[in-house]
């Protein structure tokens, strides 16, 4: 069994039958959405298994050992382990495609069309023999952007790559990845089979030397994208300024010596020639210094002695160079032990070295650099440049002009970084297509195409529920986090939430689509941001980022107490849309509403709910046309939901591109029955929230599913928020819920002002004091009567003589206790000695 064919091991006799099904198979797989999260899980699990103590390590080491020395085999597996971590793969996606969700087709705000990085489709990877890491990582790269991958290995290659693919599938939580990979051992002479593969290819990614590449080029059908990763040539360059400065000179010598020793120059980025911007004497001086440095440095780097063809090549080159020494053209400096060789050559031009710590040393005149190097331009890759600050600009530009794609520090030529371009391109862009879609008018308001697609099935979530305390315990990296927000604080204890920049921006992007769904039109609205800023609070900056993502016009006002200043700006700058916190917005309209009528068309709020009466006040009295939640989100969990024009009250669509939602019962950890109110548990895609991971996080809100499809056509499920878990309190006997008090004021009396419950002790009794605003047209007695009438539990506690008292009190603005940072009005203030609820 030599071939791994989409999850099954098959042998040569059944390969042709399998190949004949390829076309049908591709037609079935390609329209599916790729389960990227599953790939990341599987790759991380595989990385863990490749730990030297891991379950797979011994097996893979044995496979690589078939052709590689032990040290090299260990090095390759360590590199594979590092490259497969979630962090590395996400870094690659973000670095090369600018985002962690490559398959998303999103609007290019503020313009109308959508664009996305879609897989090429079927990618055939043509691998040279014995390149373990390249085969495995080439496959992973192809998967990362959602391609179906057909990896063609040499017929005599080991089973490493095939077993690698199998190991990845075994760790796939969703069981779908197998549809995206086949690894075949084919000889180059198996033309018919190769032709079958190429005939189905959307792209062919080929590695190898010139002749292998030419053969692939000839075999690939017209129009199929050929991505060629040919061999490259690198060199070091020491500028004359660097030669003049003792410190830079010493560093350059040291760096070149190290680059010569690392990987025995086997990397395409290893230097083969070092150019010295000097005369013959200067070149000789550098050579002597380098030889001196190598005596010390070479033994510090473990290496392989060349054998066979490599040794023959070195002997040939040295033999010719020694003969040329008698012509005065060269000087050979050799380690007595044969560990390294320096070949000073007084002729110009870049020369390939026979490697294994062999380097040409040549003079270069800066004015001739471009013309000297350009003939080799298609093979040039890295220049290890030793230069001073003054020369860096012109030298780098000239090197790039000559064809170099990468300039590195001497000593670090073979190093790279996550998301680095390769040979002048991002690999992932070569394996993707940039598609565009100009959608019909009816789809306006849709920001991401997959809002209209059935959600990708997720593997069932298991494990403990993460509560606020648990979340805090995970937020331990405050010192290293990119962004630290203060979260909540109503409880009096300062609580933090951290984000990386990448996660923050990805989540804001998702939230931006939600705001568009709610009715913001980035191409025409002029939006004032009235959220709270400062005090480590996240709402103002989040909406700043959201509006920036949308490229909408923004007026960054903030949550100011001076309503007149805000209104002046709204009127003079003609802000037609506001984003802000409900209690602040209501205050603004109470004071300045007359001026704002006819100017403010849209209000998007977040942080607190609006009561029905409050909504009516804004729409009917002040003529606000669009009044919707800007986002359902929090500082700790990020954006979780959005509203479409069909979402009434606190109904939201789940922000399915970011979050998974479970609703479990209030009193036990089981999924709720249809229509039953329960606790909301959010799980953020690990692609969009690295640390702290948010898995089954109990956000503190309660809600229930809406199981009818939304008329807007979006497939993100809908849920209704019904309150805070903290809205429930115990006083005297049964559970009460603050929301229910407020709903009665809203629905029975049309009260649109602020309301708050204060709990305090009075001797042995619990006092439930409902505070409402004076001057809002409602008396305390009216309010108390309505509550007693519509809240039977209140009546029951009072009449049954429990340790309970209910009161209503009219207060001015200072009688409401607000959260300093956000201006939010907590529904319940519990000042009892020992909280009961």
């Amino acid at each position, binding site marked *: 069994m030599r071939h791994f064919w989409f999850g099954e091991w098959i042998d040569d006799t059944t390969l042709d039958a399998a190949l004949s099904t390829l076309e049908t198979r591709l037609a079935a797989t390609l329209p599916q959405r790729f389960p990227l999260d599953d790939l990341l899980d599987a790759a991380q699990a595989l990385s863990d298994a490749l730990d030297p103590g891991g379950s797979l390590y011994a097996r893979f080491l044995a496979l690589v050992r078939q052709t590689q020395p032990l040290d090299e085999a260990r090095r390759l597996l360590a590199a594979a382990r590092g490259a497969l971590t979630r962090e590395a793969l996400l870094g690659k996606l973000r670095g090369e495609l600018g985002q962690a969700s490559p398959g998303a087709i999103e609007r290019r705000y503020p313009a109308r069309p959508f664009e996305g990085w879609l897989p090429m489709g079927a990618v055939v990877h043509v691998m*040279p*023999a*014995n*390149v373990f890491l390249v085969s495995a990582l080439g496959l992973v790269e192809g998967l990362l952007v959602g391609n179906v991958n057909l990896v063609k290995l040499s017929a005599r290659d080991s089973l490493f790559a095939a077993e690698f693919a199998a190991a990845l599938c075994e760790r796939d939580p969703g069981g779908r990845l197998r549809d995206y990979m086949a690894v075949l051992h084919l000889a180059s002479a198996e033309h018919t089979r190769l032709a079958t593969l190429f005939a189905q290819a959307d792209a062919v990614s080929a590695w*190898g*030397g*010139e*002749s*292998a590449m030419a*053969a692939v080029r000839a075999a690939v059908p017209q129009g199929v994208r050929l991505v060629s990763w*040919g*061999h*490259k*040539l690198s060199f070091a360059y020491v500028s004359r300024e660097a030669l003049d400065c003792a410190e830079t000179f010493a560093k350059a010598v040291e760096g070149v010596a190290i680059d010569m020793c690392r990987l025995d120059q*086997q990397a*395409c980025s290893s230097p*083969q020639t070092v150019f010295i911007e000097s005369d013959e004497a200067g070149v000789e001086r550098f050579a002597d210094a380098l030889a001196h440095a190598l005596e010390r440095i070479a033994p510090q780097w473990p290496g392989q002695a060349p054998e*066979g*063809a*490599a*040794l*023959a*090549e070195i*002997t*040939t080159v040295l*033999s*010719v160079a*020694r*003969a*040329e*020494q*008698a*012509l*005065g053209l060269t000087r050979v400096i050799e380690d007595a032990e*044969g560990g390294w060789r320096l070949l000073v050559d007084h002729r110009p031009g870049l*020369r*390939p*070295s*026979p*490697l294994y710590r062999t380097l040409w040393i040549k003079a270069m005149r800066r004015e001739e650099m471009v013309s000297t190097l350009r*003939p*080799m331009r*298609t*093979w040039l890759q890295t220049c290890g440049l030793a230069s001073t600050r003054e020369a860096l600009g012109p030298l780098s530009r000239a090197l790039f002009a000559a064809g170099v794609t990468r300039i590195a520090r001497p000593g670090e030529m073979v190093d790279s970084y996550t998301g680095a371009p390769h040979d002048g391109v991002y690999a992932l862009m070569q394996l993707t297509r940039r598609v565009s879609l100009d959608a019909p008018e009816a789809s306006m308001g849709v920001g991401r195409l997959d809002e209209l697609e059935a959600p990708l099935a997720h593997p069932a979530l298991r494990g403990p529920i993460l509560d606020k305390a648990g979340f805090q315990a995970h937020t331990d990296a405050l010192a290293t986090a990119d962004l630290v927000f203060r979260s909540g604080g109503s409880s009096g204890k300062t609580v933090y939430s951290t984000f990386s920049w990448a996660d923050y921006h990805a989540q804001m992007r998702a939230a931006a689509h939600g705001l568009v769904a709610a009715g913001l039109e980035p191409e025409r609205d002029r939006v004032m941001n009235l959220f709270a800023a400062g005090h480590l609070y996240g709402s103002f900056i989040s909406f700043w980022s959201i509006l920036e993502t949308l490229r909408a016009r923004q007026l960054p006002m903030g949550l100011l107490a001076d309503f007149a200043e805000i209104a002046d700006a709204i009127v003079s700058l003609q802000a037609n849309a506001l984003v802000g916190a409900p209690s602040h917005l209501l205050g603004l309209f109470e004071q300045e509403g007359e001026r704002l009528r006819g100017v403010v068309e849209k209000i998007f709020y977040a942080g607190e709910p609006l009561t029905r009466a409050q909504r009516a006040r804004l729409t009917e009295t002040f003529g606000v046309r669009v009044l919707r939640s800007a986002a359902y989100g929090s500082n700790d969990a990020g954006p979780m939901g959005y509203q479409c024009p069909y979402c009434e009250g606190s109904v939201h669509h789940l922000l399915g591109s970011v979050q998974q939602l479970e609703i479990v019962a209030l009193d036990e950890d089981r999924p709720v029955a249809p229509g039953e109110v329960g606790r909301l548990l959010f799980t953020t895609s690990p692609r969009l929230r690295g640390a702290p991971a948010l898995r089954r996080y109990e956000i503190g809100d309660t809600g229930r599913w809406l199981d009818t499809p939304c008329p807007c056509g979006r497939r993100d499920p809908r849920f209704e928020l019904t309150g805070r878990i903290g809205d429930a309190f115990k006083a005297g006997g049964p559970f009460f819920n603050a929301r229910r008090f407020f709903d009665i004021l809203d629905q029975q009396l049309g009260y649109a002002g602020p309301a708050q419950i204060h709990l305090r002790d009075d001797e042995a009794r619990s006092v439930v004091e409902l505070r409402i605003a004076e001057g809002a047209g409602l008396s305390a007695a009216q309010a108390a009567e309505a509550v007693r009438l519509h809240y039977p539990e209140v009546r029951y506690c009072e009449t049954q003589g429990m340790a309970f008292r209910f009161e209503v009190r009219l207060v001015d603005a200072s009688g409401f206790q607000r959260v300093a940072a956000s201006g939010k009005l907590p529904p319940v203030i519990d000042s009892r000695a020992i909280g009961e609820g």
Partner: protein
Amino acid sequence: MIDEPQDMSLDTTIPDAVRRFCALEAAYADPLTHEALFVEAMREIVAWHIERSPWYGRFACENGIRPDTLRCLDAVLHMPPVHAAFFKAHEIRSIRREQAVAHLTSSGTTGQKTQMFFDEFTLGGARRMVDRVMQARGVWSDAPAHYLVNGYEPFEGLTVGTSNTNQYLMRYAPVAETFWTLRHVGGGRHEFDPFGATSALERWAQGATPVRLIGFPAYLHFLLERWRDTGHPPVKLPPGSLVVFGGGWKGQADKAIPREVLQAYIERQLGIPGERVVETYGSVEHSIPYVDCRAHHLHQPTWSRVVVRDLKTLRPVPDGTPGFLSFVSPYITSAPAHSIVMGDLAVRHPAGECVCGDHPTPWFEVLGRAGMSANRSCAAAAAELLKGHNGGEEGL
């Protein structure tokens, strides 16, 4: 000038032992028979080049080569050799330009074509040697023959080595008709013409005149492969027909097939028996001819010593050990190429290991280019492509 003699007054008389050794008649003499003369001739030729080639004088000095120390075969074979690639990159002569009577061009690794120059003695000697080994192989014939040459059709200005070699091979039987398969299409470019080759062979198969196929084996392979692919029926070339291979699989190494396989196809598709397929090895940098015996083994002829050298030290290795193929011979007075390392890996076998029975000399098997591994060929490929696609370089 370091590339040619500076002293105009130097005697041009060929040293006695060199002259006598190169004049030996028998193509395959037991090496022991003339060993003393060989050593003496080598001592003379080393002194000749040290005296005449300023470059070799310095090289010999730097590498401790002194004629007076060359007193036995072992000392001669241990003398540091020069790599053939050096002569590809540099024009180095032990004669003045005007003394040259011929030159062969070779493509160099760094782009420029360089030339090997021959004086009368060297050229005459080399030709005589080729004649003798070809006679020994039974290639000589008085009967006219048709020639299918898998080589570059000559045009004015073409001086690449192979055409010369092919033309030289056409002396061994009078020419009836000739067809060059790499047709000159103008501007110095050549194209392989399989249709012309096919119709020539079909026509010649009808007659009685023997056919001789010479030149690059790759193109004969392509032609026969084409026939098989298109169902072209085999032909039976007239008795006495012959194939002589030279020039290797230049630039087509990845398409090379084993010699035995190609021979079988030749026998089946052209009707030429295996023993009439002649294998040769030679190069511009070393003109001694190496021609196979009936068992297809490349034997050392009387006038040279085949040495296989260590991959690291270039010192001779025992028979059976792979290493660099190299040759030592006093035949050349025009350039210091008397001890030369080739770009091929080979293994040498003692005379007794060949079943042919009529060649009392060791023989060698070429194992392939002494190049780099496929994985590291990036740099080399770059150099290779820059060099462009020149003609062949190996000759007899």
